[in-house]
């Protein structure tokens, strides 16, 4: 499989920059952006496996709104929420809207990595399921058997 792509969204530049650097050091293709709007722009151009989204950002689009848009643009991309305590309720709201999970700041990179792994696994499983469903659909149309076999490889 090709590289693991992660988009990190956080308004705290010091945090953003460092996390991105550290993720890259671990072989992850990480992109950092400072706002919800920027994140959505980036996602329109590039596919990501997981988005790490700080749910509480001053000004502009709020986390929940951004989450909604993200799920619309890239429905298969998993979103891990980052939160301080004040926004726990928002995080739960986010879970309902399809976020994978949330993490409490401050986080250790190891925790984040583990969570990203889980999220990726889920995404992968999800994709597989969709692929299988597609294949099943093809099975129902015998004329496409060849195509099915090719995909299975």
């Amino acid at each position, binding site marked *: 499989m090709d590289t693991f792509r992660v988009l990190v969204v956080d308004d*705290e530049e*010091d*945090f953003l920059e*460092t*996390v991105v*650097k*550290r993720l890259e*050091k671990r072989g992850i293709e990480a992109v950092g952006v400072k706002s919800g709007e920027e994140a959505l722009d980036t996602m329109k151009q590039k596919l990501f496996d997981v988005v790490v989204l700080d749910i*509480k950002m001053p000004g502009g689009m709020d986390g929940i709104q951004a989450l909604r848009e993200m799920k619309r643009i890239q429905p298969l991309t998993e979103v891990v929420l980052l939160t*301080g*305590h*004040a*926004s*726990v*309720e928002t*995080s*739960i709201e986010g879970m309902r809207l399809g976020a994978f999970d949330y993490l*409490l*700041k*401050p*986080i*250790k*990179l190891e925790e984040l990595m583990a969570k990203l792994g889980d999220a990726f696994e889920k995404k992968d499983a999800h994709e597989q399921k969709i692929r299988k469903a597609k294949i099943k659909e093809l099975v129902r149309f015998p004329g496409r058997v060849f195509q099915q076999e090719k995909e299975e490889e």
Partner: protein
Amino acid sequence: MKTKFYIRLQRKIILITLLVSIAPLITLGATIYYQFARMYKEKVEQQIRYRSAAQAQAVDLFLKERTAILGAMADTHKLHDMIDENYLADIFEVMNNRAGAFVDLGVISNAGRHLAYVGPYDLKGLDYYQQPWFGVVMRKGVYISDVYMGYRKSPHFIIAVRRQEGLNTWILRATIDPEIFGAIVRSAQVGKTGDAFIVDQAGVFQTQPRFNGGILTDAHLNTTLFGTGTTVIEQPNPQGRETLYAGTWLRNGAWLLVIAQEPAEEMAELFATRAMEVAIVGIGLLAIVLTVVFTTRLTVNRLRETDKRMNELNAQLVQSDKLAALGKMAAGVAHEINNPLAVILQKTGWMSDLLEEEAFKESENYEEYKTALDKIEEHVERARKVVHGMLGYARKMEPRSEQVEINETLNQTIALLENYARNNNIEVFRDFASELPVIASDQSRLQQVFLNLITNAIDAIGNDGEIHVKSRATGSTIVVDVTDNGPGISKEDQKKVFDPFFTTKETGKGSGLGLWVSYDIIKKMGGDISVTSDPGKGTTFTVELPVITTQQG
């Protein structure tokens, strides 16, 4: 200081109520008391006034009758017949038969010589010329004397009439029996203390009184106090007892007939009534006082309880308000601290990452750097724990609703801590009620609370002691008591145990958040947590959980 207020209030109410209810009663009682006495006295006064007047009339009549008989005898007989003592004795007999009360009868010449005499004394031949009465009778024609001793040396009085027989004048004189006269006067005596007697103008007894002296002795009565008709005066008798005297003048003011009566005797009935009245008023007063005191006490005590309950509620309200406000503040602070902590953690992580590169590993200070970075990370972790603890959230934020068996939860919690307790030589006793209802709650949260309480109990005891964990059902709640026999908590500190950052543990050992978080958790579950402590004996934390059963089971 509070107690004083209620005592004062109670006193005020009692005083006012008593004043309002007792004053009219006493006024009424006193009015009846004195009015009765006045009426009675008036009645007694009237009675003796009437008796005095009636008796005076009777005595006057007696004297007039005697005078009339004597006058008739003198007018119808001649002197030369009268000086015959046998003749005189016949007349004396007729007089005594008709009227009685005559002791003797004598004929006296106009020169004062006793010409003839019938009677028990030997008075014949005596010369009365110098006697004062002689002059009066010669001048006025009729004379009734005061009581005097005279020649016979025994108290008596006389009636004398003058007879003009041609040119000659003579006097017929009779002595009235003082016994009979006295008896007539005394017939007006009534009761045990009543007296009836006659005094002259100087206040000397003319008849034998019942008490206080004898005939011709001083009656100690100021006769000038008595006016015309019948007068009633009140003065103490020689024994000092209040006495009513009703006096009526006789014989044109020469004698005073007196009826004396101690009103006390007549008023005995009144006194009985009075005593009854006083008793009734007294019983009434007692009843009022008792009722007022009793009801006021009851009222004030009720008030006191209500106030106390209100104060407690207020205190609880203040406490939860305070904690809610602190919670909000803590949440804000947590966010502000968490962000810089996140940056520090990432920066440190980045430095550690870089340190692993070849070039740095060669550096002679490599170990120092590594240790320093680890330390920074460790302390960020510590700060993070404090902030997380402050909010009381572990991983999942929203309390879950699951089937919880309290006894099971307690068992698990105690199992976690049993080793720790044993190491400190502390025994944990379980006293669980069987068949507690299964409630819908959040097991891990409850475990966190019980863990906090039991850990605190162990830490409070230190070494050697007992912890009792007790569960029981009270209908609408399940109650868990965690009791230790540690040093206890002072009254001051009891108020603060649920405040955040309040700890008595040494710095670094306790965050002071455990109980605060427990409080928050239990309150959010709709329960209650409280502390009672007896300094020196131990402490009990009580958790009350509402019995809520899940809808889906």
